[in-house]
């Protein structure tokens, strides 16, 4: 029998349908717990700094991946920065068109070495440019999640 056998009709192919029943509940972790509490309670962004590598992590980490030191130096960083890169998303996960395109971006927050992932709002796609200054817009009611920041808008 050959390796490939052409099916003339798709109803000849038997496929079994099913799903995998899972939900995941993630803890924030040692560093994440503090990061998200600061967002929730104080609407501010906190990062951790490695003195050996002179590297500031946002979101903060409890260890430095470069030198492996435990990171205990927490610094407040401003909730503004510039757009490092962005994309305009037109389709959802099932490839259906979105009602309104979304803007996802990597943001260079002032004073941080790692890039922050989030969305842009209050701006049209044509207006966005790399290097655009932006600031975070925090929700009124916050729960300790990344969506407590609604989006970043142009300064």
């Amino acid at each position, binding site marked *: 029998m050959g390796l490939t056998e052409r099916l003339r009709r798709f109803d000849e192919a038997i496929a079994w349908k099913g799903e*995998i029943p899972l939900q995941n509940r993630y*803890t924030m972790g040692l560093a994440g717990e503090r990061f998200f509490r600061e967002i929730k309670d104080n609407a501010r962004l906190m990062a951790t700094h490695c003195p050996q590598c002179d590297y500031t992590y946002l979101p903060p980490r*409890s260890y430095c991946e470069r030198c492996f030191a435990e990171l205990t130096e927490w610094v407040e960083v401003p909730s503004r920065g510039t757009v490092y890169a962005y994309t305009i998303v037109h389709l959802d996960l099932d490839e259906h068109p979105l009602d309104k395109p979304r803007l996802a971006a990597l943001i260079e927050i002032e004073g941080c070495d790692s890039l922050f992932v989030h969305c842009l709002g209050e701006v049209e796609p044509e207006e966005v440019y790399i290097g655009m200054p932006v600031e975070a817009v925090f929700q009124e009611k916050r729960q300790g999640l990344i969506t407590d920041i609604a989006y970043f808008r142009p300064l």
Partner: protein
Amino acid sequence: MKMRRVAVVGAGMTKFVRRALETADELSWQATQMALDSCGLTLDDIDAVASGTAPDAFDGVHMNSEYLCPGSGGWNKPFIRCYVGGGTGVMAVIHGWYHVASGLFDTCLVVCEEKMSSCQPHPQGAFLTIFDHTLERPLGPNLLWIFAMEMNAYMQRYGLSHRDIALVTVKNRRNAKDHPCALLGEDITVDDVLNSEVMAWPVRRLDVSPISDGAVAIVLASDKVAHRLTDKPVWIEGVGWSLETAYWTNRDLSYPQQVEEAARMAYQMAGITEPRKQIHIAEPYDPFDYKELHHLEGLLLADKGKAPEMTALGITRRDGDLPVCPSGGLLGVGNPIAAAGLMKVAELFWQLRGEAGARQVPGNPKRGLAQAWGDLMQVGTVVILGVA
């Protein structure tokens, strides 16, 4: 074939807990940092990293090992993942071993981690995919079925009673009382096991190890480097691994043939001709009590059907002729899938150096064997460690 000698020179682990606050990579970092500290190394001294972590579905993270990479010391380093189900904890050591034995690298970190608590309502949801999607899942199975049926076949073949098997849980939980990272170190009796609720007959609740979160890390080094770092390197003398058919219903479930294949490969490499005399400590994989016995037989450390008798005679106690699972095993310390196997290797490392504290096997043991097993009961992985 020219292979370099490889030694374990350091080890570290986190507590095994039911649900950890730490993220998966934080757990990895805690274990890895401890392993590096234990032999005075920094990340700069590490040439490569071999990581092991079980199904991505547990953590709900795509490519879980790569996600753990920073916490495993893998930043900017050659990094490899292995996953063979429960066999991962020992397979990762084998991966790390050939990184160094080949001459390609002088040092290698081996890091295994599991965070099963994020999988809700029960990690079994992720395990359901172990059953064939078309022929088996429509029957509504759960993971216990496989173990229960294997246990039943084993008991029936050799006329074993549940009482004989329950002794293993009693022994391992008692051993675990002396393990600082153990989840379930406690004194229980055979009757406690036999009276615990039936889950899938013959399996009862206390026959099963607790699922947990945790991470373990060890440091491997080539002989020249090992001698510089420590005066008591623990050598990897033999490795072996083998896989059985996925068509599990066509196998003889009363005997783990693939464990024997893996053991023979490792014994040959280590020059061991009389395992029962030459192996001083055994850490076989014990996710269920009957599995310790099943595996002891597959490892040729007991005659077929005779491992329960060995246990009843006290031979496998810490102070017996062949201590088995002096750590407390998965039944006592916990079962974070990949980390559990590596816990056994770390245990041998500490035991053979006389550093196991209250768990120390007396009599100056020189050679130990760790074995793990997994997938659809398919894989056998074996590592033999020894000191001069």
